[in-house]
């Protein structure tokens, strides 16, 4: 079986993932809606996952994919807890604008 990367090239995946990751970072910085921030985080996670899979193919080794499984598990847990926190914040403060969550102020 031919390696698919022969035709695409690992560099392209790297560029794609970097840009995807940066978009995620941009989203976190740009938006103040906590849910969108969450989505941006998911984007970043996915960028990394994609890179894992790409390298897994590159090395012809399944370990990278295993890692992605775990990453997904963690992401799922994180979203569940994170959204629960968001809901309770919303219930308490009636907003999910991160700009208004200033209780950390020292």
């Amino acid at each position, binding site marked *: 079986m031919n390696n698919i990367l022969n035709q695409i090239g690992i560099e392209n995946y790297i560029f794609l993932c970097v840009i995807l990751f940066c978009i995620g*970072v941009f989203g*976190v*910085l740009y938006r*103040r809606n906590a849910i969108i921030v969450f989505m941006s985080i998911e984007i970043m996670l996915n960028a990394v996952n994609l890179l894992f899979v790409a390298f897994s193919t590159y090395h012809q080794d399944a370990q990278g994919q295993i890692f992605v499984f775990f990453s997904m598990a963690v992401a799922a847990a994180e979203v569940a807890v994170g959204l629960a926190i968001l809901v309770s914040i919303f219930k308490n403060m009636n907003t999910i604008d*991160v*700009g208004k*969550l*200033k*209780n*950390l*102020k*020292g």
Partner: protein
Amino acid sequence: MDTSLILVLLLSPFIGFLFNVFLGKKAGKTIVGIVGTLSVFISFAVTLSFFLQITQTKQAITVDLFEWISTQHFKVNFGFLLDQLSILWLLFVTGIGSLIHLYSISYMHDDEKMHSFFAYLNLFIFFMITLVIGSNLLMMFIGWEGVGLCSYLLIGFWYKNQDFNDAAKKAFIMNRIGDLGFLIGIFILGSMFTTIDFTSLKTAISSASDTNDLWMAIAALCLFIGACGKSAQIPLYTWLPDAMAGPTPVSALIHAATMVTAGIFMITRMSFLFDMVPSVQNIIAIIGAVTSLVAATIALTQTDIKKVLAYSTVSQLGLMFLALGFGAYEVAVFHVITHAFFKACLFLGSGSVIHGLHGEQDMRKMGGLKKAMPITFITMLIASLAISGVFPLAGFWSKDEILMTAFHHNIALWVIGSIASIMTAFYMFRLMYLTFFNEFRGTEEQKHHLHESPSLITIPLIVLAILSFIGGIISLPGNSWLNDYLAPLFSKVTQEEHSFGTTEYTLMAIATIGALAGIGLAYKKYLKENTIPSEDENITGLTKVLYNKYYVDEVYDAVFVKPINVLSNFFRDSVETTLSALVFGLGKATFQLASFGRRFHHGSVGFYLSMFTLGICALLTYLYYCNNF
């Protein structure tokens, strides 16, 4: 045998001290007095046996108990040395000590703290014995500081009066200034000769080449400063008059007869050192002469009976130092002994007077006591004659020898010394006339109670008066027992017998005439004209300066005490707070930094994240470029 005898000699007063401290209150006043006196008397008896022994064997006794302190250069043993000098000293310390203890039984009988008084006195005798029989400088130093301590305790015996406490403190601190000099002297000698033992020091110093002359001179000077402190010489003499705050027996024992002569003892002990450094000897002679004159002038105008005697003591000590300065150690020792007799007698006499007047010490309020207190009067008269140097009493011989020595070495100092002794005659008889002659000037009630003191007081007086009378025989010119006795101690052979010629007789004549002139002046002024020293506020002119002791205390206060206190306040209020503020300043700076940093933590998540991203960029860049280049 010797060891145990020495221990008996030493520990007997100490046991007396312990007894009086722990059991004194329960035992009652009589037993306290008996135990206190007896313990000193035992020491005296032991000393007598040693004395008899040494006059026959002429061998010094040394005993080393155990090693005490050791340094790299020398070891100090807990050891004792009994030679002619120390036994002689012991004789009059324990002898006069016993008499004064006896006297105190009656004198202090009304004081509720009699047991502690006797405890302190015993402790004093213990330390004095240690001082005298110590075999090295450091052992001597134990006694040296110990007697200073007892002096402190006894001056401040009536501790409820803070002025007395001040006087006690002053005495202790001034002594300590001298003690520092003493210590430094010990350090220099110890490192130079690797021993501070008297016997080995003597050999080492006598065989030393003159290369270290300067250091030896410094060492000698330092020791002399120590002696100055203890023996109340200029500039450290001001504590002694204040020390009269203590009970009168204390003044007699400590501040006239024994402790204050410790400086003379030390210099005599170290004569081998002082003989090597003539420059220091000159200083000693000059200081001695000046002290004797200054103290005598102050004594002229004092009205407190004990103050007069105190300044007289300072003056006499000055004369002794004058003799020491000329290397005439046995002359100084001779005067120490005679002085101990008549000055103790005078003090005890004044104590008897004060006792009779219920604590009155001002001579302006005395007078006419001759009839009421005949024994006191006669004994004091004898002692006064002795101190004035009237032939043939003890003082005449010793003082004359000092002046003669001075005359042979330095005319100027002889003149000073002679003037001082003429003044002595004057102020002593001023004291006598004011106290015992004319009419009584006190209150009616005092007059009513005037009486002769009990026999426990008068017996010591009589004994001392007799001694003052005949004390001179131990060293008559030309045939001196004392000089022969002490001869083994002094290396110098220069003390050849003065050929007894016309000069000497002339000098004796001059001295006697001088003494009589002083007495005559006093007679004219205080008996014939019946002058009474004016009240404090009426004193003017030179008299005022003298009456106020040349304002030395005030000057010392302004130059030393006040600046130190001001400095202390300054340190406490300014420097301490500044230092503290500096440390707190460091803390505050951290705090400032924190509140500056706090402004970046305003709780904006976006800002945090931006910084976080920026940090990651920076980190990546840094890592990347560091690994590549």
